[in-house]
């Protein structure tokens, strides 16, 4: 769980940073998309390495979801009869949203790939014109609302996930104490980076 999660986390960090290229204009973002496809081109061909990365990410995602399903199944077996009176959450809220929040994220990733990668659900939907595709998306407020909800779910998911992984893999006690704050700081920064794009489009900063 922690290892596949860490891989997905690193991907999300790289993705959040790469998105900021949109503020440097269409050429920067579209050029970045093109550059991703030319990486190690002699060895893998055009877009070859991208497919390798996609395969690794997909494998990580499948293993991540499998591990989550196993944990959920164990939990159900460990408490076959539930409580009649369910108390309010005493521990951590982000921890309690991991399962349903994770399902939400999975649905978002499917939508996101259909929107941005294949262009199927995108109002512009021209491959290679990432800038125009993204701007066309976020000029519609329902897209921004759905997107914002997904990013906030991602933030909660990462907050607990990163902290919990550090608890499981943590080295020193001091590192574990710092982990809660580090995880929160990382999640807030990632949310801010992802959300800056739709709101820049909505407010007309990007057009």
């Amino acid at each position: 769980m922690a290892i596949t999660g860490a891989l997905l986390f690193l991907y999300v960090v790289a993705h959040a940073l790469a998105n900021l290229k949109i503020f440097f204009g269409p050429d920067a973002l579209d050029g970045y998309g093109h550059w991703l496809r030319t990486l190690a081109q002699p060895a893998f061909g055009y877009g070859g390495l991208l497919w390798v990365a996609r395969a690794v990410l997909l494998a990580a995602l499948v293993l991540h979801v499998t591990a989550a399903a196993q944990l959920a199944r164990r939990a159900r077996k460990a408490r076959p009869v539930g409580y009649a009176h369910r108390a309010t959450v005493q521990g951590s809220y982000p921890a309690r949203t991991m399962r349903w929040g994770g399902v939400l994220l999975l649905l978002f990733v499917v939508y996101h790939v259909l929107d941005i990668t294949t262009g199927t659900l995108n109002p512009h939907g021209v491959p290679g014109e990432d800038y125009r595709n993204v701007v066309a998306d976020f000029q519609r407020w329902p897209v921004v609302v759905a997107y914002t909800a997904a990013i906030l779910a991602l933030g909660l998911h990462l907050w607990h996930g990163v902290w919990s992984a550090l608890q499981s893999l943590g080295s020193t006690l001091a590192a574990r104490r710092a982990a809660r704050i580090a995880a929160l700081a990382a999640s807030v920064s990632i949310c801010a980076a992802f959300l800056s794009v739709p709101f820049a489009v909505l407010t007309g900063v990007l057009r």
Partner: protein
Amino acid sequence: MKLTLKVWRQPGPDAPGRLVGYPVDDLTPDMSFLELLDVLNQRLILAGEDPVAFDHDCREGICGACGVVVNGRPHGPQRATTACQLHLRAFRDGDTITVEPWRAGAFPIVRDLVVDRGALDRIVQAGGYVTAPTGSAPDAHAVPVPKADADTAFEAAACIGCGACVAACPNGSAMLFTAAKATHLGVLPQGQPERATRAESMLAAHDELGFGGCTNTGECTAACPKGIPLTTIARLNHDILRA
């Protein structure tokens, strides 16, 4: 003071159970929660009914025998307090209170509110001890122990094995108990040699007994009458990684 109890009644391990309502009056706020059950049982006996079975022994918060889920919270609403040390002033006159047994597949119900917590003993039997006979207690300063280690060991050793952590955990995990029982030995000199293997075999037993997997939700610490911290679990994970 008057309270209405909704108590889980189940005549035997395989018999079906249900919540039964009992109004109880003439209570005082300084009665303990177990005394409330005593009062109820006196009346049930006088009326010729079966008393409610519940576990208890020391009634001073140190043995770990008592434990019922009160309004969804193991040992009731007060933090770091066992059910026997919980007083009725924690409730309001006229409240309706739901009383259920610990709910876990690994804790089969014996009767009413009594569950079999033998699974916790199995976890300790899997390695929660020091193998080599160490004789009688050594002189106080014969084995030097840093103060910080002594404090950590003592904090973990405060676990009374009540099982509230399991009852509270949404995953039905006994990780806090297991971590406490591994830590109170692991940080002391006598427990060092078997530290990693102890953690590993105790966790293996934990999983085999059907407890759920820990996802660091923190419900256990919130329910623990001895306030065993969540970092105890982090230390267990650390020991397991070293194994």
